[in-house]
């Protein structure tokens, strides 16, 4: 069935069912892994002819809906630590502001694109490989019924975090540490997310699991909660400054993504934490490989539209 509609800000027409299917796919990833999905949806939208700047801005608008839907589902299952989320968010907003300034500075110095992409590839490959190895090892142990031993580095880092002052309890996550820790980590992720141009879910979820030691499902729900506010901020700024939010595009995408987020959350609840970690790490590695391909394969033309990193 072919039903095309015209997107007023994107300035092109697209098939409605294709957009709903894209939203459904990305929304289910959001509900399943707690990531916004911008890393995947923006390139897909560009591939179907949406201008890059409109794709990125409208994507952040639909992520607001997907993360709201996913957060609600996880909150009902008791997987959202609001206190932790608010601290991460505060740090993230401050880090984001600094990140924007760093980007400006890098652009003035030159080769900003190179630094951004290389750091992205390195960062994703490190996180992806570590998560994959760790969860694979745990699943292997689980099958052989051997007790889990924490890595020596992990144990040392945990000891260090416990020494930090201003400790506070996070009853929902069942943990207790300095409230400075989520603030600082949120700040660092905010810087990276602003430099890399993404929501930061890919970085935040592993950090919540490995550094703050949140259970996998709690990490997903809490990250979704704080991403709502980050994406609201991005959507508003894009609408106000760049006029690149296509409301019609976002509306159609969010029909699919909100449904997908619910499906993803339901599937997530049926999977073991380590199975989820393996899947997430595989996706992180795929994204990294795709980015590497973009860096190594000669482009079709030496000219491209301004507004995106790639």
């Amino acid at each position: 069935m072919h039903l095309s509609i015209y997107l007023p800000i994107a300035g092109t027409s697209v098939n409605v069912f294709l957009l709903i299917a894209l939203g459904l796919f990305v929304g289910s990833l959001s509900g399943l892994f707690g990531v916004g999905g911008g890393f995947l949806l923006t390139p897909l939208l560009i591939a179907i002819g949406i201008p890059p700047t409109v794709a990125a801005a409208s994507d952040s608008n639909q992520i607001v809906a997907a993360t709201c839907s996913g957060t609600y589902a996880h909150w009902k299952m008791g997987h959202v630590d609001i206190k932790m989320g608010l601290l991460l968010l505060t740090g993230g907003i401050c880090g984001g502001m600094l990140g924007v300034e760093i980007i400006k500075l890098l652009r003035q110095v030159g080769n900003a694109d190179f630094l951004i992409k290389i750091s992205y590839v390195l960062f994703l490959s490190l996180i992806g490989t570590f998560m994959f190895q760790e969860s694979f090892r745990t699943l292997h142990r689980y099958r052989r019924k051997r007790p889990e031993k924490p890595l020596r580095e992990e144990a040392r880092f945990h000891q260090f975090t416990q020494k930090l002052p201003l400790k506070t309890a996070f009853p929902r996550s069942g943990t207790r540490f300095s409230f400075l820790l989520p603030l600082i980590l949120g700040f660092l992720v905010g810087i990276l997310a602003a430099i890399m141009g993404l929501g930061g879910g890919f970085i935040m979820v592993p950090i919540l699991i490995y550094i703050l030691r949140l259970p996998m499902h709690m990490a997903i729900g809490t990250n979704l909660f704080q991403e709502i506010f980050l994406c609201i901020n991005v959507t508003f700024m894009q609408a106000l400054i760049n006029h690149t939010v296509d409301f019609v595009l976002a509306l159609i995408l969010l029909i699919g993504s909100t449904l997908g987020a619910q499906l993803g959350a339901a599937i997530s609840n049926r999977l073991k934490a380590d199975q989820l970690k393996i899947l997430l790490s595989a996706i992180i590695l795929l994204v990294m490989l795709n980015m590497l391909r973009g860096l190594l394969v000669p482009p079709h033309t030496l000219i491209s539209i301004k507004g995106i990193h790639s």
Partner: protein
Amino acid sequence: MNRCRKNLALYLLLFLLVPSLSTRARYRSFQEIIPVVLGEQFSVLPKQIDITFFYHGGNIQVDFLAPPEYDPVLVLEGESDSMVLNRKGRVGIFWLNLDEVELKNAPHVYHIYSSKHLSQLAPDQLLATLRLGYDALGKDIEVRSDALEKEVVFSEFVKFQERSGMYRMVNGSLQPFKRENGLEHYSFQIPISSAMPVGRYRIKLFYFYENRCVQEFSETIILQKVGFTSFITKLAFEHASLYGILAIVVAVVMGFSIGFLFSLFKRR
């Protein structure tokens, strides 16, 4: 229409009277009558394309006549503007955005359809004067680039525009569908992609004969947003903060509503 028929009849009469006229007189009469006939038979429809919610591009129907010895060239040209684009380059083994290039006086859309290869119709100098073909366009466009030659930038720009369907050059695409009363009838559809920007477009028709452009006609068509698409565009550009808040509120309400509905469904 009556005037057109009269002109056509006059033209035919001239052909019938050929044996009784001297060659020179025949040529002069031909020169006087033919532009009127061709101009009146040049039809472009529709003149205005409304972009509605269900718009997905379309075609512009162009009909015209041409004497058999004439070679027609049809051009669709959008408004010219300045464009700033990223330039990619190689750093070691990586392909990256290195700097910016600026193209001035470059049309957003440029389609050219001809009956033969342009080089067979007119010398380069004349094509450049008429801005016909990529080579002519390249000479007319101003390029600002620190690292690349103008020709390289323009050739990459054309490749880039061709990939998105904004630029098109098809030699040999204009062919008559019938010949009647000594004239060839052409009927051609110019594809209008849904991604073409709103604005005014010129449709130009050139007739070439013996390496000269003997006649030129043009029509203007307008591509404009109407109704819902126009309303959303105005809201986004003229009331940006309201538009942003609306987009966020709808997303939040939709997100939580679907979450709530699913939780009800699960309970049942």
